[in-house]
């Protein structure tokens, strides 16, 4: 893994952005975290348009469900309809532990689901596990 892993974080909460950044900084794997703050920007990023022409293709998308303009669900629906983008694993970040929110995420073919913890240490652990899991065990399609 010589190249840094490209991660797209779609999140509108400034605090969560910092926390996620911090958590990934602690990770062992070299990564580049790109942040967009709403669903529309996320799609622009993925389609490389409207100012995101130079955006790399992410290896992993972390998607918050509650966002202004276009929520995570709509973004996910769009991604899963695109033959190219649907190969990118999407992990839903959510505050709620409600059964229906989890179910909804999986119905939309999210690869995984992470509940944002109250405890930062726990959050760090979660991100760590995520990195271990997705970047060591799961093999992604080779990049061109």
């Amino acid at each position, binding site marked *: 893994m010589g190249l840094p892993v490209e991660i797209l974080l779609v999140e509108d*909460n400034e*605090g*969560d952005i*910092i*926390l996620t950044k*911090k958590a990934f900084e602690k990770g062992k794997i070299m990564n580049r975290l790109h942040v967009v703050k709403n669903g529309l920007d996320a799609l622009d990023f993925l389609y490389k348009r409207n100012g995101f022409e130079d955006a790399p293709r992410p290896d992993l998308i972390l998607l918050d469900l*509650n966002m202004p303009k276009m929520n995570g669900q709509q973004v996910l629906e769009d991604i899963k309809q695109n033959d190219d983008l649907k190969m990118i694993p999407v992990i839903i970040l959510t*505050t*709620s*532990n*409600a*059964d*229906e929110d989890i179910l909804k995420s999986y119905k939309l073919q999210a690869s995984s689901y992470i509940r*944002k*913890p*109250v*405890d*930062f*240490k726990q*959050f760090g652990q979660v991100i760590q596990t995520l990195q271990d899991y997705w970047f060591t065990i799961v093999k992604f399609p080779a990049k061109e």
Partner: protein
Amino acid sequence: MKTKINQLINFFLPEKFKNDTGNRRKAIIVIFIFIFVSILILAMWISTRNLSSSNEFPYGMALLITVLSLFVFRKKGSFYLSGHLLGMLVFIFLFPVSLYTGGLFSDDALWLLLGPVLAFFAGNKWTGLIWSSMTMMALGYLYYLEINATESYVKDSLIFDPNYYITSLLFLFFMILGVMFIYENEKTKLIAELGSKRKLLENYNQELEGVVKERTKSLRDSNVKLQRSNSDLEQFAYVASHDLQEPLRMVGNFVQLLEEEYKDKVDATGKSYINFAVDGVTRMSTLIEELLQYSRVGRKGLEVEKTDLNKVLGEKISDLSLLIKNKNVQIDFPQLPTINCIPSQIGMVFYNLINNGIKFNHSKNPKIEINYNETPTHWWFSVKDNGIGIEKKYQEQIFELFKRLHAKEDYSGTGIGLSICKKIIEHHQGELKIESEIGKGSVFKFSIIKEFKQME
């Protein structure tokens, strides 16, 4: 003269018919008949005494009976009774006469028919029928006497005697006429009554329809209100689970981040403050989470499934495996049935009861026993522990929301767990009970209806 008659009539008119126009007329006719019969008997009595030939008939007695009948009518005001009395009077007066004066073929026998006719008109169809049959029996008796007495005469000429035919036909005619009259009378009365009843019924129906419409409307209104408040509640639950958790997370996470990033500058006291803050936030978050679980019980959206409880229980025990290992807990349960329920909710009940059984337990070898049996309608499950037990006086309270019997320092928890269990079991149309003895342990028993369907 007319006023005198009116006075007489009014004197005999029963009290209850004075303001009842329909019955008043009939009562006047009855009184007239009685007076007429009395005068008739009196006249006959006087005339026969003048003749002084035969004085066998008890005219005095007959007159007494008639006048008494009039007073009886005045007192009782019963047409049924007066009809009977009139029929009886005719029968008493005429039957003995017809016996002596020539039997069946005499005019006196024909007058016997007057009894049923009077009974029909003054009384009702039942008195008429009774006196018709009495008369017919009497006529049959007369006929029998006739046959015996004039056997030879009958042999020769009965067939050609016109008297016989006229009497019989007349008798038949009166009978049929009477019955037809009564039948028609009753029919029109019945139809009229039926008509008025139907009208009444229609009125009631209309009234009822109005009431039903009104109720339906108010029901629909309250249903709309209920739906609105339900969706408000769901909105609230959503806000609570997302928007209340959000700031909590920020506080918790950033306090910890502060600790980590400024390690060198925070001393032990500062660290303990940070721990308090994180602990508080974590507890608040759990509280919100559990309150939400509580509010979600009974809501639509969760499917009722045929559930293998062995699987559900297995999952919950594995969730608790760390605790079980640390406290050296032994959990025993038999092969459990497959039942209709909401698996996540029943799983939560098992989880909470087992967790409590371990948490409130000082035994060196904590033991949890799970068992079940069934009644025709319900499944019954029990979760037994050898923990600290609960005093009798607190056994009802423990199911109340936020009810805690112990200090937070001794036993952690929000005080919602058992409330959630109770609500879940009630949603499954069952019961949650506790039997417990202090120091010996507790048995929680709960039931689930066998034919469980999600309520609409």
